[in-house]
């Protein structure tokens, strides 16, 4: 690793840490700017009871003290405090609980999207301007223009309401199939288009022509020469794909009643469970920032032609 590279990685890591800190700060102050506080609006609550509740959760201290405590607990103990509505449970525990389902959902969806996307994109590029290519492009264009909640509900109508093939409830046996499909269609279409255009780019390069002139077989040209270089742009999409899957899973989990982190997030918004909202936002945001960082650094390592700023 050159020193230039090291400098770049260091810079990006610092920027990522700064971003995470900003997310924590913004989340904290924005949530505390909501008028009324978390305990207003519940069933008639006496002044004393409210004061006691606020003292229990440390809400009676000055804002800056609360902020410093919050930040210190996160950094030193990875502690986001107790949930305000699910009595007796820590935010981290609840999130870890939901994460088990959501992570499985997300990872499977991401894998399916990447593999099928690359295959379809490569096929479309190799067979460009044929009927097959046109069909792939039309379908992926349609999928890219379809919000995830529409996709999810349409799949729900077709496969579980009308055909009765798959369960509509995500907790049931095989219930994750529809959510995974819903979640993977958009990134799959995106990767298909990305792979197709970069593959077309690569196939037009001189070294491909040279290989062809030497008499290298078609399969060897595609898999040995073209594939590697045309996959580089796909690496940059890993970060955004994760961001999409995180937000997409909120909708998908809501539609299919999957007991995951996205559904918890939505219900904590509805219940005004402030510590949950803050904790989930910060953890998911950090996850996205870190994934972006990894995919950006990977991109530069894989392709030495790219210059470091």
């Amino acid at each position, binding site marked *: 690793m050159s020193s230039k590279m090291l400098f770049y990685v260091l810079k990006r890591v610092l*920027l990522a840490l700064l971003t995470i800190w900003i997310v924590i700060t913004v989340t904290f102050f*924005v949530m505390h700017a*909501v008028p009324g506080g978390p305990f207003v609006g519940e069933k008639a609550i006496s002044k004393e009871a409210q004061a006691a509740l606020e003292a229990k959760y440390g809400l009676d201290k000055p804002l800056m003290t609360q902020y410093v405590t919050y930040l210190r607990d996160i950094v030193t103990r990875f502690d986001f405090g107790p949930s305000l509505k699910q009595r007796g449970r820590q935010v981290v525990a609840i999130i870890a609980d939901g994460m088990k389902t959501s992570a499985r959902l997300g990872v499977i969806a991401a894998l399916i999207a990447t593999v099928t996307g690359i295959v379809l994109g490569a096929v479309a590029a190799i067979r460009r301007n044929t009927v097959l290519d046109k069909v792939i492009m039309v379908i992926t*264009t349609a999928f890219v*223009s379809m919000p995830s909640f*529409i996709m999810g*509900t349409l799949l729900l109508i077709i496969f579980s309401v009308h055909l009765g093939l798959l369960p509509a409830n995500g907790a049931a046996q095989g219930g994750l199939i529809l959510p995974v499909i819903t979640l993977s269609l958009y990134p799959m279409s995106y990767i298909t288009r990305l792979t197709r255009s970069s593959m077309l780019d690569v196939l037009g390069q001189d070294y491909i022509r040279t290989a062809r002139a030497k008499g290298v077989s078609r399969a060897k040209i595609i898999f040995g020469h073209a594939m590697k270089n045309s996959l580089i742009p796909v690496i940059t999409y890993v970060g955004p794909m994760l961001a999409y899957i995180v937000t997409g899973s909120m909708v998908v989990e809501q539609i299919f009643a999957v007991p995951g982190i996205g559904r918890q997030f939505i219900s904590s918004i509805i219940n005004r469970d402030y510590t949950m909202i803050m904790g989930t936002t910060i953890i998911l945001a950090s996850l996205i920032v870190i994934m972006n960082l990894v995919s950006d650094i990977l991109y530069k390592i894989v392709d030495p032609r790219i210059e470091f700023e």
Partner: protein
Amino acid sequence: MLNANKPFSLHLDPKLFEPATEEEKAYISRMRPSSTFFRDGCKRLLKNKVATVSMILILLITLAVIILPMVWPYSYESMLGVRPGKPVDSSYNNLAPFTWGKTELKRMEEGEKLFPHIFGTDGHGRDYFIRVVYGARISLAVGFFASIIVLLIGMVIGSVAGYCGGKVDIIIMRIVDIIYSLPDMLVIILLAVVLGKTLNVEGTILEKIGSNVISMFIVFGLLYWVSMARLIRGQILSLREQEYVLSSQATGAKGGWIIRKHLLPNCISVIIISTALQIPNAIFTESFLSFMGLGVNAPMPSLGSLASEALNGITSYTYRLVIPAVVICLIVLSLNLFGDGLRDAFDPKLNA
């Protein structure tokens, strides 16, 4: 040379003053009127069938959502079964397409002609067709205005960063980097939750739009300008090295003038293309937020909130979900295809 035959003579060659022959005239006559960059682009755009069809579709939808609510006999918020002083007539709730409620049937027997409920009514007895039209209106309006906001902020900041360079550029670009790496959807949800509660617009002109829509605009304005700013900065960085900028500076023009008169008009095609592609993006976000209940305020429909309301009756009233879904896909798809067509037609990089 005055005279080709006698190089040292000062006599003019009379041949030079003869009228031009037909051949020479044909040489200088214009084959066709000269074309501008804009006209060239339009011609290319119209040749692209997909883009033209999408453009017509967008225009039709836009006209429909503007005109239809004015002439339609039902309004999006009036519950047809509710009349002052009488018990609620539940026969109006969940009407199937092209059917009528009890009192309407009576009036029709008496010979009155009534307008059909093309898509029936929803669970509260509101005409569903006009709700879909109104929802499309809200979605399009949010998409359009959000993109304008993004465009304005991005244009100002991007051109300042690009033109000034140096420290100003570095500071602005660091801020852009940080906002760019923020996970936008999460921040949008967070701000939508909070702003929806904190913004107090009652009693102002903004009341009709609703605090949630305004918070959406604020969020768009805060977060989405960064890519536009980056784009314009890049354009300006290369344009400001051109000679005409130097000449303008030499004659004493101020920075603002140069940016407005020379630099921005030269990156107009990039600006238009990315604004066009920003609109479907904003519509996506709006419908996502409305679907989660963070979008438009209650009686007002948007395509996202219509779809999420329809989820409850998904087995018996499937069409109520399918209709807004189709409309939203149609709008986003045609905007995307039109934006792609615009890029193909106007991107100067491809013409070179």
